């Protein structure tokens, strides 16, 4: 127990060296850092620049003279009162081309935590707190002597969120991003533009147009255009790897978002920076690979993308580079003019200031490094002198194999201006037969704020889909300048390529009109993937004011195509033309996904008459009953609306044998208060032979009736029932309805709860509102409760939005417990940190982490393996100091990761709901609580909604651990993400499994048929998810033991393999001893022992393979690697 642990530590005699634990900082010697790198074969690394020449680089960008510009902030995270603003823009030069900077010039030195810099337009754009500045040197000494505010009104609510990630688009615009806590309000001559939360802007300096490209992402610290002008972003606090972003796309944590698009690699490390490997110096097989620094894990991850519909699949491949040095913090990565790859190293044992104190002495303010990566035996690229090149030479560079040259030649051309460049450029543009060259020409013209109509038209009809998509992206910005734009766009809605169709919708979204919506929805004639569906959903909602009146006046009718109308109604969630939808349901013309979408739409917006029809259709079995029941439940709960008549038709459904149908019917019977159902429900509830789930359903139905009768029913059974289950359920339901009457009986039940029933969930019912928790607290006073139950109660109470102090105190006394949250003294903390470093065993720590009692895996994932409720811990060890980990375990409310704050909703009747905000619509708020359960709350019922300072992580979770176990656990966490065994790598091993639970098949059956029986489809089998350890291995001992004959215990898991649609792959098994493998129901012969590799044809059934091991005699872990042919 922690209380014991803290005590024993404070009594220990190690105090003498107490401070070392907190001041243990890595050695800044450069050779130490170099020794720490792990490089792939053929790669070399050298130091390009280091402290004291530079310090604390935040972002870097090249200029067209091959100089590297960077912003440097020693002030971060917060100005000290009385201190001067002294952050800098530095310019580094490597004049003798030896790969080492030989000169550093301070371009500007009075900045305030500058977070972005990019040279351009004859000066440099710099992000400076609330503003973007343009700094210019007018006399050639490379020192800024002119300062202009370009944009102001950026929020500064968090200094690692402020405007950052400056990039030039090929279109000549400046792109920059902001993070989750920032609220920006920019005044432009085109009107005010606001962005709440994360997102990326684009800005055209010559017109002062500033617009939002996409919204969301927590920390969009990486942004890049690919060779075709598509845009991608990484997230420094998200965990979806590479994100495909496009106009109006909305991503994770955008405030008020009803719907978001996920990234391409869920469960990946958090990334800062993004670059595409390109040019001749990079090995052929690496060209096109996206690299992004995992600054927590001291490494740079790599991803390979392939087009897939309108979006991409992204596969993580081996790390680009990694380091064991704890202060190596790669935060930006850029291809350089010599074809090498440059890495900005923030160099800091501490990464940020959200969780670690602003003034923590371990925070580094003076170091910083730029590393340069090259490949042995591969020639460097030639550095052109863009500044001295003629226009013709610059145009030739537009088709250079070096992407760097193409980009910087374009910037130089833009800088020289239209008068000097356009005559030659226009001629050149039309002479480019190759579409890729044409694309460069189109962009360079765009960068000069010019449009060549013929060229755009030609590219829009290119044979190559990605060129057509790029041409449409151009039209997204400048369709007014191309007379044929409307024709191109309407044609492209039916393009054979999904990404072209996506861009056509993006173009239409720029033109609010009924026609735009009608045209966009024609895309439904083709396959619709997630981005397409999102873009359509978005345009329907955005242009509502245009198409709805036109539709109602009969000026448009979606060509009388029901699926289009249905899509529009479902997206908008407004009651429009529901009659035709109902007709489509009753005549059977809507099927499958359209049918269920139609039912949902009517449920969301229909009148009570419409619901009436829905009920009839379900009763006549013309539409699926279960889905309809769910929809009717939501209509009642969220919109307080029910069928206008004939609700008794529901009684028929109570006869259903389908468990789900019965359950929903019972619920609904209560919600609709169908009196004739009440007696049936009571009978089912009180019949001792009723199954548990059915009884639960009947109880919930009865509760939904509410009122005195329901209270009386439950009170009676709570008092009189001789059946334990009935009594317990009655108490729980009574507590829901009238907590003060249930409190005493609840305490009696809890006091008896020794056998591991989950009666502690009774606490949740009493935690719903302060009156209820007070009545429970009063009932507990003077009583004794088992310590385990009291502790669980305190944990439940501790995570409710407003922890009820009176109840917590009562539980503490009743269970004779110490307080849950622990504050360690400085000395205790120091000793504990030392113990973790000296004695902690991370392997045993992983076992503790995975143990059921601790519930870590119920909320957290490591590298995407586990649950998404809490933050992914993949690199927690390499980003958080040990004392931070300890504090987080002992007192979760002390530190809450951004993006994981709890939302507390209080309804008008005083009930409170807490959880992570999943979505917020016009009608309802959806929360996910710490057991993963989703709750929808009707907006109409909501009194207040606030961000709660209470963590969803229960306090005192580790209270039951022994001291050594706690130390091992912390050690394990502190190793996560560091170079070594506890860093999740990119090997494609199976990490997500479904484990077979003990079941009703007899031991004799199993003994008779052998493990083949587990590969059969058998409906009583129940499978629960289980994840691999960090190494990818799965310990047989952790699998639920399925009893076989005699002493045999089986551990059984199923898994599938994500595969490209075609081709073959192999499974590489570490050890086949005492293992059986099944492909479907067919056993695959494995050798008696030793490793095995088996080849299979592709298939995507997620339950395809079954492995059964004898878990008594096999102690070797299970490790399965998927090998795909190159």
């Amino acid at each position, binding site marked *: 127990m922690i209380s014991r642990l803290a005590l024993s530590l404070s009594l220990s005699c190690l105090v003498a060296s107490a401070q070392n634990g907190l001041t243990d900082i890595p050695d800044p010697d450069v050779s130490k850092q170099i020794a720490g790198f792990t490089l792939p074969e053929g790669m070399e690394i050298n130091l390009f620049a280091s402290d004291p020449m530079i310090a604390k680089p935040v972002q870097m960008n090249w200029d067209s003279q091959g100089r590297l510009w960077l912003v440097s902030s020693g002030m971060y995270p917060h100005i000290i009162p009385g201190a001067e603003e002294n952050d800098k823009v530095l310019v580094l030069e490597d004049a003798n081309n030896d790969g080492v900077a030989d000169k550093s010039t301070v371009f500007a030195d009075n900045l305030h935590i500058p977070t972005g810099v990019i040279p351009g337009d004859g000066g440099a754009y710099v992000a400076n707190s609330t503003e973007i500045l343009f700094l210019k040197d007018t006399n050639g000494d490379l020192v800024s002597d002119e300062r202009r505010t370009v944009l102001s009104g950026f929020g*500064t609510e968090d200094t690692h969120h402020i405007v950052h990630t400056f990039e030039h688009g090929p279109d000549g615009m400046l792109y920059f991003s902001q993070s989750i806590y920032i609220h920006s309000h920019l005044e432009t*001559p085109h009107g005010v533009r606001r962005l709440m939360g994360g997102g990326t802007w684009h800005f055209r300096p010559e017109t002062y147009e500033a617009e939002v490209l996409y919204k969301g992402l927590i920390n969009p610290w990486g942004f890049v255009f690919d060779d075709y002008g598509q845009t991608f972003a990484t997230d420094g606090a998200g965990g979806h790897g590479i994100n495909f972003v496009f106009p109006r796309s909305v991503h994770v944590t955008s405030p008020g978002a009803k719907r978001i698009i996920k990234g391409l690699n869920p469960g990946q490390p958090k990334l800062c920076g993004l670059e595409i490997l390109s040019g001749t110096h990079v090995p052929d097989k690496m060209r096109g690979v996206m690299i992004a620094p995992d600054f927590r894990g001291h490494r740079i991850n790599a991803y390979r993308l392939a087009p897939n519909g309108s979006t991409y699949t992204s596969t993580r491949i081996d790390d680009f580079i990694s380091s064991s040095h704890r202060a190596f913090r790669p935060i930006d990565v850029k291809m350089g003019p010599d074809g090498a790859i440059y890495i900005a190293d923030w160099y800091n044992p501490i990464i940020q200031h959200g*969780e670690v104190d*602003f003034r923590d002495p371990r925070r580094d303010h003076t170091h910083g490094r730029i590393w340069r990566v090259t490949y042995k035996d591969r020639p460097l690229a030639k550095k052109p002198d863009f500044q001295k090149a003629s226009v013709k030479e610059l145009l030739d560079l537009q088709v250079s194999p070096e992407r760097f040259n193409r980009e910087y030649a374009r910037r130089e051309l833009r800088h020289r201006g239209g008068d000097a460049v356009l005559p030659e450029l226009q001629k050149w543009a039309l002479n480019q037969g190759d579409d890729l060259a044409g694309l460069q020409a189109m962009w360079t013209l765009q960068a000069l704020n010019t449009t060549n109509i013929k060229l755009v038209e030609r590219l829009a009809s290119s044979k190559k889909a990605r060129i057509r998509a790029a041409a449409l992206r151009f039209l997204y910005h400048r369709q007014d300048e191309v007379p044929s734009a409307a024709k191109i766009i309407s044609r492209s809605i039916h393009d054979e390529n999904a990404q072209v169709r996506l861009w056509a919708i993006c173009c239409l979204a720029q033109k609010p009109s009924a026609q735009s919506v009608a045209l966009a929805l024609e895309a439904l004639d083709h396959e619709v993937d997630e981005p397409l569906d999102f873009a359509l959903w978005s345009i329907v909602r955005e242009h509502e004011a245009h198409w709805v009146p036109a539709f109602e006046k009969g000026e448009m009718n979606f060509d009388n195509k029901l699926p289009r109308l249905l899509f529009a109604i479902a997206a908008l969630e407004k009651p429009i033309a529901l009659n035709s939808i109902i007709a489509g349901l009753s005549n059977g013309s809507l099927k499958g996904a359209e049918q269920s979408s139609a039912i949902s739409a009517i449920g969301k917006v229909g009148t009570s008459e419409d619901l009436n029809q829905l009920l009839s259709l379900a009763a006549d079995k013309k539409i699926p009953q279960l889905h309809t029941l769910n929809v009717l439940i939501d209509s009642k709960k969220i919109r307080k609306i029910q069928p206008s008549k004939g609700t008794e038709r529901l009684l028929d459904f109570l006869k259903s044998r389908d468990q789900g149908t019965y359950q929903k019917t019972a619920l609904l019977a209560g919600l609709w208060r169908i009196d004739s159902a009440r007696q049936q429900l009571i009978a089912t509830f009180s019949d001792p032979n009723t199954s548990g789930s059915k009884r639960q359903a009947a109880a919930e139905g009865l509760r939904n009736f509410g009122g005195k009768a329901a209270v009386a029913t439950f009170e009676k059974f709570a008092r009189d029932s001789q059946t334990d289950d009935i009594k317990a359920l009655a108490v729980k339901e009574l507590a829901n309805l009238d907590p003060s009457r249930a409190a005493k009986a609840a305490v009696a039940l809890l006091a008896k709860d020794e056998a591991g029933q989950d009666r502690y969930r009774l606490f949740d019912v009493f935690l719903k509102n302060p009156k209820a928790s007070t009545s429970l607290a009063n009932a507990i006073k003077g009583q004794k409760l088992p310590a385990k139950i009291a502790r669980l109660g305190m944990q439940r109470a501790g995570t409710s939005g407003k922890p009820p102090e009176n109840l917590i105190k009562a539980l503490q006394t009743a269970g004779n417990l110490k307080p849950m949250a622990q504050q360690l003294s400085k000395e205790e903390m120091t000793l504990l940190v030392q113990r973790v470093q000296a004695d902690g065993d991370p392997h045993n720590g992983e076992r503790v982490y995975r143990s059921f009692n601790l519930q870590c895996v119920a909320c957290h994932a490591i590298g995407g393996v586990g649950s998404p409720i809490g933050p992914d811990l993949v690199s927690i060890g390499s980003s958080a100091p040990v004392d931070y980990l300890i504090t987080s375990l002992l007192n979760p409310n002390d530190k809450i990761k951004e993006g994981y704050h709890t939302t507390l909703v209080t309804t008008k009747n005083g009930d409170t709901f807490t959880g992570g905000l999943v979505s917020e619509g016009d009608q309802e708020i959806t929360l996910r609580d710490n057991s993963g359960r989703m709750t929808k709350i009707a907006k109409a019922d909501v009194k207040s909604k606030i961000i709660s300072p209470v963590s969803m992580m229960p306090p005192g979770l580790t209270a039951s651990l022994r001291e050594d176990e706690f130390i091992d656990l912390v050690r394990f966490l502190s190793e996560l993400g560091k170079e070594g065994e506890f860093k999740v790598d990119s090997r494609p091993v199976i990490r997500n499994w479904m484990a077979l639970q003990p079941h009703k098949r007899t031991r004799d059956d199993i003994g008779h048929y052998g493990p083949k029986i587990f590969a059969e489809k058998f409906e009583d089998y129940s499978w629960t998810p289980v994840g691999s350890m960090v190494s990818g291995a799965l310990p047989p001992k952790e699998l639920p033991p399925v009893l076989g004959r005699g002493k045999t215990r089986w551990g059984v898991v199923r898994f599938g393999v994500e595969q490209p649609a075609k081709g073959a792959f192999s499974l590489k098994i570490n050890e086949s001893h005492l293992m059986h493998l099944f492909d479907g129901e067919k056993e695959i012969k494995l050798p008696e022992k030793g490793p095995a590799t088996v080849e299979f044809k592709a298939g995507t059934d997620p339950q395809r393979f079954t492995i059964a091991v004898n878990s008594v005699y096999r102690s070797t872990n299970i490790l399965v690697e998927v090998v795909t042919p190159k």
Partner: protein
Amino acid sequence: MRMKPWILSLLLISLAKGDGLTFQNNDRVVLLGNTVVERAQKYGHLETALTLAAGEKNLRFRNLGWSGDTVYGDARSYFGPPQEGFDRLRTDLGRIKPNVVIICYGAVASFDGDDGLMDFIKGYNRLLDMINSAANPRAIVLVSPPPAESLGSPMPDMSKQNERLETYRAAISKLASIRKIYFADLFGEMKGSNTGLTNNGLHYTEKGYAVLSSKLVKAMGLTPPTAKQIFSKSGQDLRAKIVKKNKLFFFHWRPANETYLRLFRKHEQGNNAKELEKFIPIIEARESEIDGLKTATLKVKS
């Protein structure tokens, strides 16, 4: 809505309140508005001009301008709705307790033209009521937003916007006369000035602020300082000192990292909020230096 007829008949008088604005010693003056007000603190011209126009009386300025702001406090809220920003302003005013409030809103709202006018005036009345209840200042000055500049292609032509600004100017003037508070017609004073005073048609350059400041002081019925005073050594030092003081106040009043210092993550880093108070004595020291430099500048003969 129809507003035009009364606008035509309205006579724009620069001071809706009959008597001229006079400062008193140690007046706390709040400057309130959107970008034009916010950026004035960076250059200091406006405060310098007002400081000198007040003569021997010492003034204390607090610039509460905020880019993109409106009479509803749209830009001031962080994680909540605009009302939160409005409440924040109320708290700020309650703490500062200004004697004089100089307000310039309308530049953002005017992009909505006639459609937005009624809402704007409704919001302006609400704002003025709030200011009275929070701080009960002796004087309030409503300033019409300055005209926009058309800087030539590819920058947008702002003539339509200027027509809208005229409409808003008239409405603000009427509001001031109804409420019997001061009106300073910056729009009128700036109209017809040379162009090239702004970067982007809306927002003033350092030089532009020099022109704007003197015109605004005039529009308030005060006498702007002479060029000789402004360009004197002490005049330049005065402005530099004002800019420095403004920065310190900005770090105190609108600090970075508010999420941690005061908002929903203050349980983590709120202990660092005590640092914000350390700016106060530094600001006060700068202000007494400003008083001295002002006295010196006033002695410069015009």
